[in-house]
């Protein structure tokens, strides 16, 4: 089973996770920019983070045979902090980089006017750079947030089929599908979706334009949830080609829109001493 995790925050994960992900079949991933748990206080804090997504994290991933790409953006939560908003001016510098395959994650958190502005501006940036956009749907007041998101996408210069609406669930999937956007489901141990509910959605709506991710981060989450969904799909009667479409071909098609995806990564020398990032002083 070859797996492309289209949404995972590896900055918050250990090398043990990379190793386990490779063993589970993960060969590629996209790490979208997001909130770090601790609020940032300046654009410079974003720049160090973006640089890590363009340097250190791909280096770490490559040692475990995993191709690392990223999406760059001002996240919805910090779009409300005037100290952070000026980072929007710097985004064009990052959106030209080879391993940046999307603008994201953008969207709504508390559905404020500041979030409206940041979302619209960043959809425009995606269109300007011929990149797709990863748009997260809010945790609170989700259906209203989805409708507002779709309205802003329709008013933007970005085609709906260059937009991935993420963190969908049973209450939002139908309207999201109608919009013509790609559909993302985040599978978590406790919140968001679980394996069985994801399979039920796939049975109802089919596998076309559907992506499944672990969205694993610093919270209670599991980077192997993509694999678990693949197994649950097979157990429920889907065939291997269906699983491959959802877990590999769909993310490759979506993130390939900008022509920057590179999936031929091989580890430089293999993991140092078999189990650690090359750090020295073992």
């Amino acid at each position, binding site marked *: 089973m070859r797996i492309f995790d289209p949404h995972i925050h590896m900055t918050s994960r250990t090398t043990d996770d990379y190793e386990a992900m490779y063993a589970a079949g993960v060969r590629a991933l996209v790490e979208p920019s997001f909130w770090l748990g601790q609020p940032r206080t300046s654009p410079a804090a974003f720049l160090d983070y973006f640089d890590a997504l363009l340097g250190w994290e791909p280096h770490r991933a490559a040692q475990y045979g995993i191709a690392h790409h990223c999406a760059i953006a001002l996240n919805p939560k910090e779009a409300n902090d005037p100290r952070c908003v000026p980072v*929007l001016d*710097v985004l*064009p510098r990052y959106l*030209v980089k*080879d391993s940046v395959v999307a603008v994201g994650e953008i969207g709504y958190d508390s559905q404020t006017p500041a979030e409206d502005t940041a979302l619209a501006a960043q959809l425009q940036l995606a269109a300007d750079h011929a990149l797709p956009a990863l748009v997260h749907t809010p945790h609170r007041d989700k259906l209203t947030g989805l409708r507002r998101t779709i309205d802003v996408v329709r008013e933007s210069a970005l085609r709906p089929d260059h937009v991935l609406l993420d963190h969908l669930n049973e209450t939002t999937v139908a309207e999201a599908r109608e919009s013509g956007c790609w559909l993302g489901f985040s599978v978590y141990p406790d919140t968001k979706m679980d394996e069985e509910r994801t399979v039920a959605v796939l049975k109802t709506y089919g596998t076309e334009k559907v992506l499944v991710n672990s969205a694993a981060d610093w919270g209670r989450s599991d980077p192997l949830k993509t694999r678990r969904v693949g197994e649950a799909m097979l157990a429920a009667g889907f065939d291997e080609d269906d699983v491959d479409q959802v877990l590999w071909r769909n993310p490759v098609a979506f993130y390939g829109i900008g022509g920057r995806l590179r999936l031929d990564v091989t580890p430089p020398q293999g993991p140092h001493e078999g189990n650690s*990032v090359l750090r020295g002083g073992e």
Partner: protein
Amino acid sequence: MTPTPVPATPEALAVLRTALDTRLTGPARAWLDDALVDVRAETAPAGRTPPAAASTRTATPAGAAASTRSTVPAWELRFAAAGRHCGHEHADAVRVLLLTEARPGPETLARLYHQGSAAERRAVLHALPHLVDGPEGLPLVADALRTNDTGLVAAALGPYAAAHLDQHSWRHAVLKCLFTQVPVAVVAGLGHRAHGDATLARMLADHAAERTAAGRDVPHDLHRVLALTAQARP
């Protein structure tokens, strides 16, 4: 993989261009030709009018706080995009060629490094011996040597470091190669700088003792460098 030039000579650059012409696909070669046109147009000495073929793409920040429009020179956008247009295996060589054609000063070079992806930073390090005569590039070498990205560490230890890096930092860089499994073959001027260096010999012996005490192998490269230190300085 197109080799990046090690000796800092015009001949090495000519070899690099010939290798790229042979190995790049037709569209990639055409892209490189266009990129070199952009470079020449935008870095032309004052008083010369850039050819009409040069295009300056305007990168417009569309954010709420975007009160100004920033213009990125087209050649710098080419520098960033070399991987996806020429193939990642040739990107280092293509970027070095663009840099040596543009001949940015130390300040621009430092900006390109600090605003670059890891691959762009690697190219700046490879280009240093072609572009910087004095020690002005050393902060970039020091930055790369502080990382644990083995690609950056290796790129930092080319002819520029051989010529300019102080001996203390250079010894630590050699030791870091042994720690992070960067082959010491990448270290330019290894023999010349290791010869007769009793301090380096002591550090290597201590490292070997530490590994042996832990029941670990001593890397072959350590013996190789240790043997070099035993030889007298030429």
